[in-house]
C-alpha cells in the first residue's frame, strides 16, 4: 500500500517534471546577431516575444527584475548601418545603435548640435554612456528619456526599417505612451537624421534631477532656435520631457519665442507656455505642482543657453 502511494507520488512528480521540461524549453531565451537590417526585421517579425537589444542598459535591467521574458533577443549592433556618425549632403546621420560616448566624442557633431549632445550625455553614468544608444533611449519609450526632448527640438527624424520597408518618422511621433511606440511588428530604428544647423541657430537641453547625476529626469527641456540677422527669432522648437505620458513637442512654447528677441518677456511667456503644456503625474520622482513649475523654469534657462549659442554662431 505504502509503496503504491509512493509510486503514485513518483508518477505525479515525473509528470510534473515533464511539464517543467516543457516550460523550461518555453523559457529558453535565444540570442541572435543579424548582420543586415532585413535579417533583423525578419527575426523580429517572425517571433513572438522578440526584443531588440542595442545598448542593453534598459533591457538587461528589466530582464533581471523579471519585468520582461523575451523568447528571442535580437542584437542589432552587428548591422553596419546602425553604427557610426556620418555627414552628407542632407546633414548628419547617426546610427541608432551608436554608443552615446562615441557621439559625445564627435567634435564636429558636438559643434553642430550641442543641445542634442547635452541630452544624450545625460543618459546615465560614464559606464552607461559606453553602452546606451539613441535608438534604445527612444524605443524604451520612457516619458523621461533624456535624449528625446533635444532631438525633438532639433527636428530629428528616424529612419525606421521593417520587413521590406523603410520609412522616415519624426522623433516626436515614435513614443505613443509609457513603454509604447508607433513601430509596427518587425520594425526598428536604424538611424537618426538631423539637418545641418542654420546660421545663427542654437540648441540646448536642461533637465532637473535631485542629485547631480545618476537620476531619471524629473523635468527635461530641449530648445532649438534660429535668429535672423537682426536678432529676431525666426524659428523655434521646444521639446518637454517627464511632464506627460510622452515627451512633447510644444508649439505654444515655440510661438512664445518666434518673432521676439528672446528677451525677458518672451522667456516669461515661454515659461508659462511650457508649464501650461504639462500633464504630469505625482510619483517617486516629483509632484505635479513641482514638475509644472520647474518645467517653466528650465524652459527659460534652456532657451537662454540656446540663445547664447545662436548669438555666438
Amino acid at each position: 500500500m505504502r509503496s503504491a502511494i509512493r509510486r503514485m507520488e513518483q508518477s505525479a512528480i515525473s509528470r510534473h517534471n515533464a511539464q517543467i521540461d516543457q516550460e523550461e524549453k518555453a523559457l529558453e531565451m535565444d540570442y541572435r546577431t543579424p548582420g543586415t537590417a532585413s535579417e533583423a526585421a525578419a527575426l523580429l517579425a517572425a517571433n513572438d516575444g522578440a526584443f531588440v537589444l542595442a545598448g542593453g542598459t534598459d533591457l538587461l535591467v528589466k530582464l533581471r527584475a523579471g519585468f520582461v521574458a523575451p523568447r528571442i533577443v535580437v542584437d542589432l549592433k552587428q548591422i553596419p548601418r546602425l553604427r557610426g556618425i556620418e555627414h552628407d549632403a542632407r546633414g548628419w546621420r547617426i546610427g541608432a545603435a551608436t554608443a552615446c560616448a562615441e557621439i559625445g566624442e564627435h567634435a564636429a557633431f558636438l559643434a553642430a548640435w550641442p543641445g542634442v549632445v547635452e541630452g544624450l550625455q545625460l543618459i546615465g553614468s560614464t559606464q552607461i554612456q559606453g553602452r546606451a544608444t539613441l535608438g534604445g533611449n527612444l524605443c524604451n519609450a520612457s516619458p523621461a528619456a533624456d535624449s528625446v526632448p533635444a532631438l525633438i527640438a532639433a527636428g530629428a527624424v528616424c529612419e525606421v526599417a521593417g520587413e521590406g520597408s523603410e520609412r522616415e518618422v519624426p522623433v516626436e511621433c515614435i513614443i505613443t505612451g509609457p513603454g509604447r511606440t508607433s513601430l509596427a511588428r518587425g520594425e526598428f530604428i536604424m538611424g537618426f537624421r538631423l539637418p545641418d544647423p542654420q546660421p545663427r541657430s542654437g540648441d540646448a537641453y536642461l533637465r532637473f534631477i535631485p542629485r547631480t547625476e545618476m537620476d531619471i529626469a524629473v523635468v527635461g527641456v530641449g530648445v532649438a532656435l534660429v535668429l535672423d540677422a537682426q536678432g529676431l527669432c525666426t524659428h523655434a522648437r521646444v521639446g518637454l520631457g517627464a511632464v506627460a505620458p510622452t515627451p512633447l513637442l510644444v508649439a505654444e512654447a515655440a510661438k512664445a519665442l518666434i518673432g521676439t528677441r528672446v528677451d525677458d518677456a518672451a522667456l516669461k511667456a515661454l515659461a508659462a507656455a511650457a508649464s501650461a503644456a504639462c500633464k504630469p503625474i505625482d510619483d517617486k520622482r516629483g509632484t505635479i505642482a513641482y514638475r509644472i513649475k520647474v518645467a517653466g523654469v528650465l524652459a527659460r534657462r534652456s532657451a537662454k543657453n540656446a540663445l547664447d549659442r545662436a548669438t555666438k554662431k
Partner: protein
Amino acid sequence: MNDMTTPGLANKEMKIVGTRPLRPDGVDKVTGRAKFGADIHVPNMLIGRVLRSPHAHARIQSIDTSKAQALRGVKAVITCADFGDLPSEFIPAGEMMVNFRDMTRNVMAREKVLYEGHPVAAVAAVSEAIAAQALQLIEVQYEVLPHVMDVAKAMEPDAPLLHEDMYTIGVEPKPAKPSNIAKRVEFGFGNLEDGFAKADVIVEREFATQPVHQGYIEPHACLASVSEDGQSELWCTTQGQFIVRAFCAKLLGMEVSKLRVTASEIGGGFGGKTVVYLEPLALALSRKACQPVKMVMSRIEVFRATGPTSGAKIWVKVGATKDGRITAADALLKYQAGAFQGSPVQPGAMCAFAPYDLENVRIIGFDVVVNRPKVAAYRAPGGPISEFAVESVMDEIALKIGMDPVEFRLKNAAKEGTRAPYGPKLGPIGLVQTLEAARAHPHYQVPLKKNQGRGVASGFWFNIGGETCASLNVGEDGSIALVAGTPDIGGSRASLSMMAAEELGIPLERVRPIIGDTSSLGFNFLTGGSRVTFSSGMAVVEAARDIIRQLRTRAAKLWEVSAEEVEWADGHARLLGEGNTKSLSLAELAKTAGKTGGPIIGNAAINATGAGPSLATHVVDVEVDPETGKVTILRYTAIQDAGRAIHPSYVEGQMQGGAVQGIGWALNEEYIYDDKGRLQNAGFLDYRIPVCSDVPMIDTVIVEVPNPRHPYGVRGVGETPIVPPMGAIANAVSHATGVRFTELPMSPPRVLEAIDSKH
C-alpha cells in the same frame, strides 16, 4: 585585568601611532583579490533563494511547498516549520536589544507577515534559475490585513495591531490593551517648569525624519555547509562572526562550538550587518540538503527586507536667557521600530541633549512598531535623529537672541564633570575644543553670497567597549601573526597592527594581522559602537604586554638573571644596570624560543570598559536654487575629538564618510511606499545616496583629547560623524532661505514648497 590605563603614555613619543602607513590588506583590495561575501565558490554548491511576502501585513493561512519540492534540481525547501519557536526574552547585544522570539519570526515569518519582503520560505537548488522557478511553485494563502506605516498613526488606539500580545513596557500600571507601542523611556533631572520660567526665549518645534538605509554597496551574502554529523561552517559578510554564531546556533538549536563562522571581507555595514537574515536560512537549507548552500541578496531584497534606521516624529522645546544660557530642555521622541520592537529610541533619548550642560532636562521616548522592515543599527543608532531636532532648535534660539551659534554652544557646552542627561558625570571630552576649532577655522570666516547659508551643529555619541580577544603569535623569525576577532570594516587591521608594533617596538611590517574565525579566538563582540580600535586595540596592547613579559623572562633565563633585571625597549630585551650592554632582539629571542620554554604567544581576553564619548562640530555652507529648491553643498568642515588618532587617514575617512552619509540623509534619502505598503524605490536609482559629483571635498580637523581609559588614548570615531550633518545642513538651508526646515529629507520639491509658501 581591565585596567589598561597608562597615565602619560598618550603623550609619549610615538614611532608608529599617529603615522599614515599603507594598510596591510590594501593590495588585496586594489587588485580584486580580496574575498567578500559573494566571492566564494565551493564544490557541490547549491544556490538558495528566498520567497518574500508581497503584502505589508497579512495572516499566513497556508504554505504549500510540494510542487517546489518536486521540481527537478530542488534539494531543499524550508519554511518556519524548520525552525523551533523561541520564548520572548531580551538579551543585550551592543547598542541594541535582541529578542529571539522576534528574531526567529523576522528571519522566517510564522503566524503573520509584517512587512513587504518578509521571508515566508526558502529553497536550495542546483542553479539560480531552478531556485527562482521553485519559488514560483510555492503556494501561500494570505489573509491580507490593514497595515500601518506612520509612527503617529501606529500609536493611535484604533491602529491596525501588529502584535496581539504587545503591552507597552515602561508605563505604570501595565496597559489594559495591547498596542503598537512597545516601550516608553524617560531620562532627565531638574525642574522643567522652573527652568522655562527663567527663560527669556523659548523655541518649540516639531520635526519628522524618514527611515534611511545604511546603503552598504555589498549585498548580504553567505555560504553555509552543514555536514551529515552536524558540523557546520558558515562564511558570511558580517560585522560580527561571533554574534552570527550565537544567533544562528540559537535559531537552529545547535551547540555553538559545532558552528564555525568565518567573516569574509565586508563591503560596508554601518550597523546593518550586525543582525542575521540569510545566514540561518542557508544553514537550515544546507542541513536539509546535506550540501553547501550559497545565498546572495539582490539589491532589491536589501532595500525591501533589511533594516534601515528609524523614521521618527520629534518634539523639542528649549528655553534660554538673553545672555545665552539654556534654562530648560524638553523632548518627546517617537521612533519607528519596523515590524518588531527595538528601535534605537533609548540611545536617541540619552544623547539628544548630551552635548549640553543642563540643569533642567527631560526626554521621553516611544518605541513603536509599524509594517516596515525591522530597523537595524545605523551609525550612532538613534543619535542623528534626536540631535537633528535639538541642533535645529539650538540654532533657532541662538538666532533669536542674536548670538553666534558657535558662541551659544560654547556657553552651554558639556565638559568633564558635566552631568549627562542620562545620569552619569562625563569624563574628559572634547566638545569645547571642536567648537573652538570651528570658530578659528578659515571656513567660518568666508563671506556668503545671495541664496547661500551657513549651518553649524554639534554631535555626541557614547561609543562602547565589550568582550574582546586578541592573539599575537610570535613566529620563529620574530615576525608577529596578529589575530583579532572583530571584522575589519574600514582599516582596523592597520590601526591594530600599528598599536602592536608600537608596543613591541618593532617595525610595522613585522606584524601581519588577520581576522580570526570563531574557532580561533574566544568570544568577541561585533564591529560596532565605534569599538574596534578602542576594544580590540586594548586587547592587542594587552597581548603585546603579555609577550613582553614572556620575552623578558626568556632573556633573563639566557642571561641567568631575574626578569626584574630585564627591561623591554625599542624591540629589545636589555639588561638593566650601569654599564650593561647585553641586548637581545625579538627576532633573536624568537629563534631560541624552543630552548627557553617553547613557542611564545600573547593572548588577551578582556571586557573593555571606559570607551570615551566622541564629540564633533560640523560647519557647512549651502546654496539653494530659489526656483527649483535644489540644495548644493558648497563647503563642508568636520571637526571631531578622536582621543588619539592611531592612523589619521582612516580617522579622517570616517569623518568624511559620515558627513557624506549625513548629506544624503539630509537632502535626498527616503523610503517611498505606495498605499498598499509596497516599497517604490528599492534600488540605487531612486534611493538616492550621494554620488561623487554631489559633494565637495570634506575638510577635517582632528582634535585630540586623550581617553584616559585607553592605553593610547583612543576614542571610537566611526559613528559620531553622522550625528551633526542633518542639523548643520538644515540650519544652513534655513539661513539661505529664511524658512525653518523641520522635515527630512530636504528634497527639492519640499524646499521649493517651503520657499514658495513664504511669499
